[in-house]
């Protein structure tokens, strides 16, 4: 699979926010490749830079954020070098995105049919009538019952699951090559979550869309991912295919995450938690960013953990890790 040229290459991406408290390094040197048809999961807790990575690829960094370094290559295009007008042609067309809370991500004053049809008029130059017909088609494809009536509905008249289907329909309207889903099921009921994930997998198979799925739910990772990037404090700390990651997690943070999953049937008194907090992005530790919370460091201390920042280094084929304890010879 990896032999073919990647669809999307992110190289050394850094997105920083200048705030009063200092520069917040929300994304700091993130690199990965995405291949056709695969699902890359990006995991990490809130504020680790998952969403900002996604928004950087979309070119939608909110102010005062700015991309200070790096390269984002989408097939033949260097996205960061594109003019806004050119970039807009890619957005929602060849790369599209689904957001976390569908009820707030849809415009309350337009019907959902109009909102989907807009994508067709915009990127395919269809007339309004043709666009609405195509919108009806994708609404059927994402499993909306009675789409003819639903087209004229407003977002507030729909359930969260329905609204997320509309978002997916909108994102997949132009059959994009890359789909970025930013916690698409977090705001939904558990039963609806499963349906939405099922739908995404179906559609991915049908359109061969490469997907970046951002989540903090390891259950979703296990179910959906081909490869996984674990992020912590703006950096990728471990990168592996999904089986390796679950069987043989290397980074102390990944291991701690795994231990914090409740296991059904297992005799467990308390869920394990990771002590401490994510360091403030304006004031990161000098050495490894996870060092202050790292439990393994107490057993096998390494002086470099607190003084030198570790690099993301290959520890096996297609498995890399950012930790002195694993890579530091």
């Amino acid at each position, binding site marked *: 699979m990896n032999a073919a040229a990647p669809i999307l290459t992110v190289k050394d991406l850094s997105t920083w926010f200048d705030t009063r408290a200092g520069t917040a390094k929300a994304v700091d040197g993130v690199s990965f490749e995405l291949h056709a048809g695969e699902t890359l999961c990006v995991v990490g807790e809130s504020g680790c830079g998952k969403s900002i990575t996604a928004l950087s690829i979309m070119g939608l960094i909110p102010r005062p954020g700015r991309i200070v370094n790096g390269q984002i290559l989408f097939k033949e295009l260097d996205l960061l070098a594109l003019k806004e007008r050119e970039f*807009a042609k890619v957005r929602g067309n060849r790369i599209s995105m689904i957001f976390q809370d569908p009820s707030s991500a849809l415009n309350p004053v337009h019907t959902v049919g109009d909102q989907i049809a*807009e994508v067709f008029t*915009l990127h395919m130059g269809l007339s309004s009538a043709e666009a609405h017909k195509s919108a009806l088609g994708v609404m059927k494809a994402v499993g909306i019952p009675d789409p003819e009536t639903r087209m004229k509905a407003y977002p507030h008249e729909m359930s969260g699951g329905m609204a997320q289907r509309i978002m997916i329909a909108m994102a997949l309207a132009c059959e994009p090559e890359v789909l970025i889903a930013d916690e698409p099921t977090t705001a939904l009921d558990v039963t609806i979550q499963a349906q939405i994930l099922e739908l995404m997998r179906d559609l991915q198979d049908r359109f061969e869309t490469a997907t970046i799925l951002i989540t903090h739910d390891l259950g979703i990772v296990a179910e959906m991912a081909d490869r996984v990037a674990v992020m912590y404090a703006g950096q990728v700390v471990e990168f592996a295919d999904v089986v390796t990651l679950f069987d043989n997690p290397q980074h102390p943070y990944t291991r701690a995450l795994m231990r914090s999953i409740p296991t059904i049937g297992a005799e467990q008194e308390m869920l394990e938690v990771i002590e401490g907090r994510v360091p403030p992005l304006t004031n990161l530790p000098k050495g490894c960013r996870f060092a202050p919370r790292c439990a393994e460091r107490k057993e096998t201390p390494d002086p470099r953990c607190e003084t030198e920042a570790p690099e993301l280094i290959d520890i096996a084929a297609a498995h890399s890790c950012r930790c002195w304890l694993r890579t530091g010879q």
Partner: protein
Amino acid sequence: MLGYALRRLLIAIPVLFGILIVTFVMARSIPGDPCKAMLGEKASAATCEAFTQRFGFDQPITTQLYIYMSDVLRGNFGDSIRFSRPVTQLLVERFPMTIELALLALIVATFAGVTLGIIAARKHNSAADVTTMIGANIGVSMPVFWLGLMLAYIFGVIFKDTIFWLPPSGRLSAGISSVPFYEVWGWQLAADSGWSKFLEFLSNLYIFNALVTFNWPVFWDAVRHMILPVLALATIPMSVIARMTRSSLLDVLGRDYVRTARAKGLLETDVVRKHALGNAMLPVVTILGLQLGALLSGAVLTESVFGLAGVGRLLVEAIFARDYPIIQGVTVTIAVAYVVINLLVDLSYSYLDPRIRQQ
């Protein structure tokens, strides 16, 4: 939708009754005696007696209120004490001028205010934003009468004999008169019917009248006379609308659905036009309704400064003369206008926001 409008109109009825009673009481609470105000300090007791009897001021106040209310319900505001003419007729003559002034000011204020607000929000924290907002703050702090006098002085006096000169007073230049459209078209009007009063009312909207009769000289003259009063009157609402548009749009531009619109690949101009503006206009429309009320009261000052014979000046003069029927008639008319405008604003919400439509 229609049911909602009807329901709202029904709710307005007790409000209007309240307005009638309050204006009736308030007009009579102005210290001073109508007789003395009208006939002079030296009017004898006997003369005043006759005067009071003639206008029914000797009756108990409840009786006066009863008579007044029953008259008003028949569409009769009574006769002015000072002019000895029906108040309705005075309103037909004077109100169009005020409406013209207030509407033009509202249109100018809305267009300029919304445009400035959009510019400020799109260029948030830039020099354009700061300049616009400082300008808006200055605009909102300038008293109407002072701004009016300054405008009259600058354009009427300093620019005299230049092409920038604008007439500082009156509605039309000397020698130009507005011919009512029904006379131009040769309509025969039944004297004193409600319909002919209405047509007369319309024809007193000079700019409208000149437009429908294609009388361009009168049109331009009327417009030129309106420029300064409209500028004076529009400045405050324009500033308020600009600030409201800016803050509302800034709020909306940070919403998730605007991010969705951007993610669809819309250019920023279209994001603002198609997705942000509709949502951002809701609070602005509320302000608009309230501002039109403020415009009617601001018109009182503007009309005085620019020597315009509108309803505002009529009211001020009536208060000095203790001309109760006029005070009541004008106040009630303005209050009704206010109620109707707010009803229209509420109805427009349901047009702008589908979430309200279904309730």
